[in-house]
């Protein structure tokens, strides 16, 4: 079925399976793989995105239910090459360990700060209750969100030997980024951000409700 989705300010026309989850369309069709699939049951929050200003689990939302809504994913946080303040504080406060929960944590925190720019620690803990971190780095995450809201917050953990501001600078340093991107691209065998194509033996769209053979093609349009 034909769907029009607005993701990070860009309108996409997508040919999607009727039962496709928002998560499937974001990752497999739009190539926005920052949103992670964890439990696929709405428990872990790794797939959290913001729909019309509210954090939701994209693994338990049908893509069709996001039609006509404003969707914000982790890829939409950085602006003009500048990390969002939340992302910077996550780096400065060592709030990232394995990193798998991070996009979801960021989006839940972002949804909170969009509604309440200066939340209490209790508010932050409630907002993040649906985001599981198996490295159990919660303390640093809560501290980072607090710092991102401009409130005084003590770093619980810093990168060894690296002051927080420096660590953040390294992440935004174009040369460092370029090296990181090349490594990832050569591992993946495709340019970063390119839409995934189904691999042989991998899951293929069931083609329900669709007669278009190029069901995975994505066109940017509608602007």
């Amino acid at each position: 079925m034909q769907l029009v989705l607005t993701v990070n300010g860009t309108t996409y026309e997508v040919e999607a399976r009727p039962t496709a989850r928002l998560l499937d369309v974001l990752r497999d069709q739009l190539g926005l793989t920052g949103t992670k699939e964890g439990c696929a049951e709405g428990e872990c929050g790794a797939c959290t995105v913001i729909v019309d200003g509210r954090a939701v689990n994209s693994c338990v939302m049908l893509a069709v239910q996001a039609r006509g809504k404003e969707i914000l994913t982790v890829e939409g946080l950085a602006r003009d090459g500048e990390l969002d303040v939340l992302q910077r504080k996550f780096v400065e406060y060592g709030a990232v360990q394995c990193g798998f929960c991070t996009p979801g944590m960021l989006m839940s925190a972002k949804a909170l700060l969009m509604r309440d720019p200066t939340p209490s620690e209790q508010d932050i803990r409630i907002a993040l209750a649906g985001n599981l971190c198996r490295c159990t780095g919660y303390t640093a995450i809560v501290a980072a969100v607090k710092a991102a809201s401009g409130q005084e917050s003590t770093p619980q953990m810093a990168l060894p030997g690296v002051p927080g501001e420096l660590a953040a600078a390294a992440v935004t340093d174009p040369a460092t980024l370029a090296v990181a991107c090349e490594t990832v691209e050569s591992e993946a065998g495709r340019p970063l951000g390119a839409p995934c194509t189904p691999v042989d033996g991998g899951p293929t769209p069931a083609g329900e409700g669709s007669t278009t053979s190029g069901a995975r093609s994505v066109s940017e349009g509608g602007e």
Partner: protein
Amino acid sequence: MPPTRVLTPSTRDELVEALAQATPRTRLVAGGTDLVRELHRPGEAPDLLIDLTGVSGLATIRLDDGSLHIGALSTFTGLQEDPLVRRHALCLSLAAAQVGSVQIRNAGTLGGNVANASPCADGATALMALDADVVTVDGAGEERRRPLREVLLGPGRTALRHDEAIIEYPLPALSADHRSVFAKVGSRTAVSVARLNAALVVRLDATTGVLAEVRVALGAVGGTAFRVPELERELEGRAVDQGSAQLFADGCMAAVQASIPGRYSLPYKQHAAVGLAYDAWNMLALGPVCEPAWA
């Protein structure tokens, strides 16, 4: 197998047209927090999905001549925040605040909570204590109103036909003389499925302060949430004091014992019921805790 179709009605008329096409294999989608998981498990795919989230007016909450009408597409976040629900059906707002996570509360709806018929549905227990009715519309455009207890039949079982969608829950709005609370025990403090939940609604006599009317509902302790009428009668006419608290706790324990005799969880739940009852009673006496205590 023919492919799944999706219909996205945006008005009540379009909803009726969509329902007219429903078969026993059709599923209605509201928040999706239970159904979408199910769709992605192996098994027979539905022939038709009807997305209710776009139907205008289904998320409305309004007060009309002493009745609070809660639209079936109201999300738990909506119920948690809505001033009418907080004033006239506080236990439902308190229950909604304890469902899942922020993400689940932003998507999950009260309509889905009942239609999915989980025995541990927090919303269902609160609605039971609030004496809520269920209004549905079917594929012929017929509206039907019946008490919630006639809709919930057992775990995952309701009296709803395949072409019938819940559109709202009317309930008698609680007055300033009423107090209502909700309490729950789960395996952890947050993002927890209830092992046992309870909603308590009382009306205090304006002059004497005694319990003029009592409604007790328990959930997650049997096939569906249920009322405990014998306990309600026992408490009526009594003062809000320690003796009544004890009576309430004993009554809740007895109700749990009667509901799940011999069940593996009984040894735990019968005692959990006592703690839960005291939690609920303390909230009643001291005023409800509007934010979760764990944070």
